[in-house]
Structures are given as C-alpha cells and as structure tokens.
C-alpha cells in the first residue's frame, strides 16, 4: 500500500509545479544592467590623426574640467584641447573663447575653422547644436545669432538673467527680479509672469521640455515655489504650483524628461521628481549638489552626477523608484551625456562609456 502511494508522489509533485508556474507565478521584473565599456585617460590617450578619420563619423563631444574634445562610441579620441575660458560644444561644432573675447571662431570636431566673426558676449548652443545664442557678459540681455554672426533677435532686461532653458522653438529666461519670460524663435516675449506669494522675488532655476510644450521654474524665497506652465493654443497656463521647502539662493538644475512626463530638479538635500500626469512628487536623498542630469529613455532612467566639496557621486535611478546605482567617484566628475542607451561620463582625468541594458 505504502509503495503504491510513493508511485504517485513524483508525478503529483511535477503536476503541482506545472500548475503553480502556469497559474500562480509572478514575473521577476526587468533587470537593468550597467556595463562599463571603456575608459580613456585624456592625458595619455592617442589622438586619431585627422587624415585617418572616416567620412560620416559620428562625433560625440566631451568635457572634463578644462579639457574638451570629441570621441565616438568606440572610444576613439579625435580632439583633445584645453579650453581658454569656456567652450560651447555641440556634436558638430564648437566655440572656445577667452574671458574677454570679442571674436568667435567656430570649429568642427577635427578642430578646423568653419567661420569667425566679431561679437560681444558669451556664446552658447542649444542641446541640438542648431541654435546659437549670445548672453551679455553682464547678464542683461540675450540674442540669437547665425553661424556667421548675424543677430536674428535680441532682448535686453533691466535685471540680471539667472537661468536660461532652450526648447525646440522657445527659450525661457528667469530673472533676478522674479520674472519668468518665454521668448519665441523670432525674439518676441510670448509669456511673461512674475510668480507671487514669496517675500523675495527671484528665479533660481528653469526648464523647458524638448517640444516646447512645457516650461517650469523655481521661484522666490520665503517660500520657494515650483511652477509648471503648459502651452495650449499659443497660451501658457499654470498646471502645477507648489511651495517647496528649499531655500536656494543660487541657480539649481532642473530638467524635463524627454517625453515631458517628469520634471526632475535639485531639491533640498537631494532630488525632486514630479510626475506631471499624476501630480505626485518623489524626493530622493542625494549627496552634494546636483551638477549634471541626463535622462535615458523617454520616461525611464535618470543618470545624475553630484558633488560635495572634493567628493563626486554618480547615481542611476528610475522616476518614482529608488536609486539603484550609487557610486562615489574619487576626483572630479565631468561630462554626463546620454547617447541612446550609452552614457559618456567624465571621470577623473578621462572619460568613460557606460552602457545601460534593460533585460
């Protein structure tokens, strides 16, 4: 009798396992794999000679401290230069200028001169490298210029510019007097607001979504507020306004996720993330001040670099989730750029590529 019972134990167990895995098993969830691919020490790396550069090469700019230049996904270094004062970089062109420069020289990633022209102020490109702006050295005005130096439009302010954000069409400017202005690509102020409710007015941060449909700013002191504006039929209206417990008296970094769902910003002691769809906010404790932010995938993954005195940190996190990678980097942290699912990160004396795989 006992033997008969034992005969059924094995097939019954298998059946139980099949039924359980078939009906009651839970997915294990997607895993994110962070893979360092290469590291190049900028002090010792060999530069690819310009005659060996292939046509159609995809250049990626990098910056680390005063060193800047161009690399590619394979880690070839095409240019490595020491910046004069500041360098405005895009993947196609760069301008390196001295602190008292009155001439701009546009060069390609090989370091060859494209054009040069006389201009006052400091130049900077938008993220795409399609638009070139000049900010007055006393921060009292901004203009857009062509790559030959012709002024497309200019706007002066009887204040000081404290923050600038560029979208595909519009540009937002935050001012010392607490005004937040949106300027269209013809230089017209299409939105002008001075958020009230704080005892001291000042704009300490701004962000523009990639498509130009949303803008945000951090405004005022006592209390400090965060506001999000949405464009609808060429009008802008406040869709989110909340007091935050920070007291920043300096510019803070804030960015929209590429799809526009999340607003990520430096918050008191860490990072704040607002889910615009649900109006929920998440706070993530961080070490130091956030210096660079990059959002991988449409709404997915945030890479952040922060620093506190001589310590640097690199963090990876998912909005509305926790930090899943946190590492202290000895020495400074430089470029933090997203190229697809690859990150180009300036670390110590070099740059490295990190791949993020979602499996």
């Amino acid at each position, binding site marked *: 009798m006992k033997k008969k019972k034992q005969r059924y134990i094995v097939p019954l167990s298998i059946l139980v396992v099949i039924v359980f895995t078939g009906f009651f098993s839970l997915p294990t969830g997607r895993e994110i794999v962070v893979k360092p691919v290469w590291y190049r020490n900028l002090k010792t790396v060999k530069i690819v000679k310009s005659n060996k550069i292939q046509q159609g090469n995809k250049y990626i700019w990098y910056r680390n401290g005063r060193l800047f230049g161009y690399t590619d996904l394979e880690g070839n270094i095409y240019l490595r230069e020491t910046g004069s004062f500041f360098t405005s970089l895009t993947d196609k062109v760069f301008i390196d200028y001295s602190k008292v420069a009155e001439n701009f020289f546009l060069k390609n990633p090989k370091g060859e001169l494209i054009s040069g022209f006389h201009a006052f102020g400091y130049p900077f490109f938008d993220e795409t490298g399609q638009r070139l702006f000049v*900010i*007055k050295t006393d921060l009292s005005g901004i203009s857009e210029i062509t790559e030959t130096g012709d002024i497309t439009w200019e706007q002066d*302010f*009887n204040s000081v510019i404290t923050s600038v954000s560029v979208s595909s069409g519009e540009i937002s400017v935050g001012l010392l007097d607490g005004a937040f202005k949106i300027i269209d690509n013809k230089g017209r102020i299409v939105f002008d607001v001075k958020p009230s409710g704080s005892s001291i007015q000042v704009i300490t941060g701004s962000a523009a979504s990639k498509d130009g449909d949303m803008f945000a700013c951090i405004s005022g002191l006592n209390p400090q507020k965060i506001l999000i504006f949405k464009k609808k039929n060429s009008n802008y209206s406040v869709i989110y306004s909340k007091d935050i417990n920070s007291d920043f008296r*300096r510019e803070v970094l804030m960015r929209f996720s590429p799809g526009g769902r999340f607003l990520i910003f430096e918050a008191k002691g860490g990072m704040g993330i607002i889910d615009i769809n649900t109006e929920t906010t998440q706070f993530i404790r961080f070490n130091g001040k956030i210096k660079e932010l990059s959002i991988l995938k449409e709404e997915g993954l945030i890479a952040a670099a922060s620093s506190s005195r001589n310590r640097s940190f690199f963090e990876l996190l998912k909005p509305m989730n926790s930090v899943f990678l946190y590492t202290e980097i000895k020495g400074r942290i430089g470029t933090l750029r997203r190229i697809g699912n690859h990150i180009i990160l300036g670390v110590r004396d070099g740059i490295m590529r990190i791949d993020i795989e979602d499996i």
Partner: protein
Amino acid sequence: MKRLLILIVLLLSVLSVYGFDWPVNKVIVTSTFGESRGDHFHTGIDLGGGTQPVFPISSGQVVFQYNSGQYSSTPIGLGNFVVLQHKGNIRSIYCHLKDNSIKTGIKSISKSDQLGITGDTGHSYGKHLHLSIIDFETHSILNPLTLLPPVKDKQPPIIKNVWMKTGDEEKKISGTDTVKPSRVEILAEIYDLREDVSFIWKLAPYMIVLYENGVESARITFDSIVKYSGKLVLAGSKRSFNDIYASDWIYRLGSIELLEGENHLLILVKDFAGNESMRNFFINAGKPK
C-alpha cells in the same frame, strides 16, 4: 516752517533708504556707469585698488549668488557674484569676486560683514569689483555714484573733438566753420580722467548737454537705465546704447538744424564730482549755391 519740516522728513527718509557706504576701503573708481561696453552700457561702476575685502553697501539679505564650479545654465560674465536685497526693494550686485571668497549659506548680512574679496573672475581685465544697484520698485538700474558718498575729483572732464555728420560725411568742427544750411548730427569725443594715475585712463562723464543758439537741444545723463521698447535706454532721454555711442568715447549728441547765418553750439559736460567743462563753436551756414 511746515514746508521746511516736510522737506527735512523727506530728505531723511531718502537718506535712510539710500544711506549706502562704499563696498571697499580703498576707493578707486576705474570705470563709471554708462560707459560703452562694445554693445551695451556699463550697468555699474568698477572699483580697483587690488585685492581687498568687499562689504555690503548696506545690510541686506542674500538673494542670489554664483560661485565657480556651481551649476549654471549659461556662461557667467559676472564671475563669482552676490546679490543683496536692501530696504525699498533695492538690490546691490557685487561681481568678479575671488574664487572661494564668497561665504555660502548666509541669508542676511550686516554692513560690517565681509561678503568676499575682490577678484578677476568672469569678463574682467584685472582685479576689481563691479558694483551694480538695481531699484526693482522703479525697474531701473541706478548709477551707484549718485547713491554712494561723493568721490574726490578736481579734474574737469575733457571735450576732445567734435564733428558734424551729414550722411556718410563727417567734418571735424574747428570753431569757425562755414557750411551749407542743413541738418547735421553732432558727435563729440568726451571723457573724464582718473586723477590717481599719471597716464590717460578714461571714464564716462555724468552729463552732456548740447545747446544750439542758446536753446538746449540734447541732454545725456548717466543716472539710470530702464527698459523701453525691448531695449535698455538712459532713463531721461530714452536713448539706447546705439543712439548714444558712435564708438567707445564718441557720443552722438543729437541732430541740429544749421540755419543760414551764424550758429552757436555750446557743449557742456559735467562729471560725477560736479566739475564742468564747456566748449563753444560758431558755425557759419552760408547760402547754398
């Protein structure tokens, strides 16, 4: 008596708002308000004197600051800087401060607290302090020299050369000129000089007035800058940078109509200490042939 009392009260209230002190101990003005900066007015004053501590012009609250290495969305020409808010919504801005000299984490500051140290950061040719004062009540950038204690200066400003311009043609005015009756633009090379150096170091004057046959026809006063039609202009004349400057020290005084016969031009220039200079010109406008 009542009027006098009101006047005293008003004067005291103005003094209590604008009772500002120099932000440095060694006061050497190396650049004045309104000077040309290539494409815009100099919106403050520069104070030289090498490395020295910087103090607030009055007690106030820290509103905004930038220290090198800190995140910034744009390049910063002001270098390391601090903005303070004072009574009456007036803000003072201290620029080009030395790296790591600004105390961080301070919210309010008294007159005797050191803000930082003069430096050479940002768009700067040497160690100095750039000071700007903005009145956010009237939305005007004020000339600090009209608000700070007077500067010692005995040297009158210089009216070096004067030209009249018609179309593309420019003619230097010698004092006894004969021209056709016409409308001309008057340009003048004018500057004040620093007294503490033996070489020529030019500064902008405070006021330039042009008289035509005894009647004031143009006045440029560097007392405040406001925004007008999207541009920064001098508050009184509503003239923009390009309306005022032909080049760095050459001012566009204005256009006048030279009438047939003798025309008398008088140019009067004042500096910030009240020193005056003037030059007379007599232009004979003959009958056109």
